[in-house]
């Protein structure tokens, strides 16, 4: 059947009109009053839903892991779309602050604990809603003795048995490396330690979940992962015991605190900034903190930074600075060298 030119034009134009109508008809996610939250925490959507129910302010949550989230923010650099950034690790926020991208804000009516006060930056460019520890040393008690110090992991007893995350992929892992370097006295000392771990058969995995899976499949018996991920795994296996796999968590001296940071973009509209401030206040409120702990696993197993705050039952006792077993690293010192350290790690350790 011969198809006329007119018929072809008609089909093409009608298809374009149909497509154009879908483009025009679809409402964007960037209505003036909608608050855009970019978050890498499990509970962010629940908090956003409760916030909207309470205040009537619509919120759109873009939930990704830290790497893709920061990639999206970087790609949008010439026209930022986010109002709130909320993720583990203070280094990205410190870098945003150095680039004058953040709006300083002190949450209304919030009293911070001693650890909480120490984690807040002097510029008030971001706030810390909670913290976990890097790392929880997860080990299979059925197969291996409990390691007690960082040096234990470089001995023959643990040869080929240890795994950790790749800091280039896993947002929480660079603070762990920064903490090692801080504790050992220098960047080079930290690199030397990691090199000795590598020589002792250290295996690298992308993220907490992959490192833990390697333990479950018996590829390794010690995993250096985020404390919340380690505790979640222990609780999971305790609820459904498995023969031959008895995960347990221990912490070496010193463990580095990993803050969950929430920050407001200084370049969004006044309406979004106002909504963002209310969102931050909500995150620190009793209601917000309760929602964040509600699921009792994963990111909910954080330690609070507010006075009188209580951790989720499964998280365990809140670590204190007094015992001198935990340390806080300066993100403004370590953040600017994150690229160089991650690059070294990828080329020499991963």
């Amino acid at each position, binding site marked *: 059947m011969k198809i006329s030119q007119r018929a072809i034009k008609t089909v093409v*134009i009608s298809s374009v009109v149909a497509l154009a109508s879908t483009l025009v008809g679809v409402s964007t*996610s960037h209505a003036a009053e909608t608050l855009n939250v970019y978050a890498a925490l499990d509970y962010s959507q629940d908090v956003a839903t409760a916030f909207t129910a309470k205040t009537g302010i619509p919120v759109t949550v873009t939930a990704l892991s830290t*790497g893709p989230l920061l990639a999206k923010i970087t790609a949008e*650099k010439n026209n930022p*779309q986010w109002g709130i950034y909320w993720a583990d690790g203070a280094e990205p926020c410190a870098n945003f602050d150095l680039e004058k991208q953040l709006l300083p804000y002190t949450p209304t009516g919030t009293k911070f604990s001693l650890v909480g006060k120490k984690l807040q930056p002097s510029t008030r460019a971001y706030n810390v809603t909670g913290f976990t520890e890097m790392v929880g040393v997860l080990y299979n008690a059925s197969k291996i003795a409990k390691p007690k110090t960082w040096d234990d992991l470089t001995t023959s007893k643990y040869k080929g048995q240890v795994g950790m995350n790749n800091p280039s992929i896993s947002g929480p892992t660079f603070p762990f490396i920064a903490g090692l370097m801080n504790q050992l006295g220098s960047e080079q000392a930290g690199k030397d330690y990691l090199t000795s771990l590598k020589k002792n058969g250290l295996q690298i995995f992308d993220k907490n979940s992959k490192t833990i899976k390697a333990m479950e*499949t018996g590829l390794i018996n010690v995993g250096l992962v985020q404390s919340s991920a380690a505790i979640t795994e222990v609780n999971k296996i305790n609820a459904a015991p498995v023969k031959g796999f008895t995960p347990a968590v221990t912490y070496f001296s010193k463990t580095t605190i990993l803050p969950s940071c929430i920050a407001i973009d200084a370049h969004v509209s006044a309406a979004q900034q106002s909504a963002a401030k209310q969102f931050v206040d909500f995150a620190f409120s009793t209601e917000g903190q309760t929602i964040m702990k509600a699921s009792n696993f994963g990111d909910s197993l954080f330690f609070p930074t507010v006075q009188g705050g209580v951790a989720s039952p499964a998280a365990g006792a809140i670590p204190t600075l007094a015992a001198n077993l935990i340390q806080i690293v300066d993100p403004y010192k370590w953040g600017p060298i994150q690229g160089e350290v991650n690059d070294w790690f990828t080329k020499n350790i991963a």
Partner: protein
Amino acid sequence: MAKPEVAQLPQLRAFSFWQFLQNKFKAITVFWFLIVFILVLPIILFLSVAFSPRLLDQGPQWFTLSSFKQVFERYFLTAIVHSFFLGIISAFFATLIALAVAWYVLRTNTPARKIWNLSIFALLLAPSYLIALGWERIFERGGVLNIFGVDLPVIRNLLYGPVGIGMILTFKGIPFAYLVISNAMRGLGEEFEQAVRVHGGSRWDALKTMSTLLLPALWSGIAIVFAESISDFGVASQLSSPGRFSVATFTLYRSVESLPVSFPLCAAISVILLLLVVLALLAQARALRGRSFRVLSGRTRPSQRQNLTLRGKVLSSGGIYLLLFVTLGIPIFGAMSASMIEGLGNLLSNYNINFDNYFRVIKSPLLRNPLYFSAGAAAITATVAVILAAVSSKMLVSTKSGASKKFLDFFLLAAVGLPGIVFAIGYIFAYNLPIAQKYGFHLYGTVALLVLAYIATALPSTTRSLV
């Protein structure tokens, strides 16, 4: 006396909006408008960041080649070299296998030809990621075989290295090469083979003659499979990391996901990938050296199928079934069995075989709704992509050699040669531009933009299918 002229009132015609559209906008203008905005603009903007990071606020320099200096460091260069050789090997083997299968399916009465004709499109449409996943689920630690007490560490180690990656890229390349070769073979009459046989040549001599006549199609097959292989991310994402065998697309993805991200570096890697694709095209053009291989004429008769002996039927069918088993059967079995085994992936768990995962998908809106959404988006994508591909393919096969044809060919090939993640970033760069927002062009962050991106990634393969 001459009659005075009476002014003629212009005839009023009923206004037709439809007529207005058809007169004002030529279909071809609309076509180019769409091609530029969904294909050309995102690609150009993304690649420009390799040379001018400051253009899109990704660095301080207006012009620099420093990103390329990083690309030629050992870590990235090794990955690019791996991709290059894997591309050549998979292109060669995929084309060889496709040629053999095409000959049996089109020129003989092998019983397996019907099932091949049905299955080839399944292989074409199956995502490479899914094929790799199926193989992985069977052989991984705690995988399907482990559950039944079978551990094959040798095969597992091969799978997570160049052998496994190259094998799956070859499987994925076979349908592309087959479509090109079979189209050409259909137009090739049997008189050339008969001429060779009449003059005392063997079947092998006939095959060599036919292969020579099919050279343009063979080279096209090699070029397309090479481009698809070096740009494939699905296989790389599944098999590249665990075995530590890096390929260019995986390092590109890692560069996007790494902390901190460097888009100029990603763009530089993409430029190199594109140059490799251009290299393949140049090699193709040089091999053909402008020779004409036109064999279709008014006297060309369709070939008659050769009658195979029983042994020939058994061997040819066996070969095709075996090919389908390894390219489709194993991955489908791996993916489906993994979906039915509860506790898979954990060496220490108790296992149950059930349909619980399927019930979870059906019952949970969180899992079910994305399927509906994807189906709807796919329907729109398929409709628009086919229309655009029809126009594109008509342009590509035209005998006229103009700038627009070369422009379209290059960007369609660029779309094949660049991984999907490049498109994603290119779309952010293009549609999040301040000028777009200023003039009310609010596409960024919408479903519509996602559909446009799907159309852009579907267009090249759809065009090739219609050529």
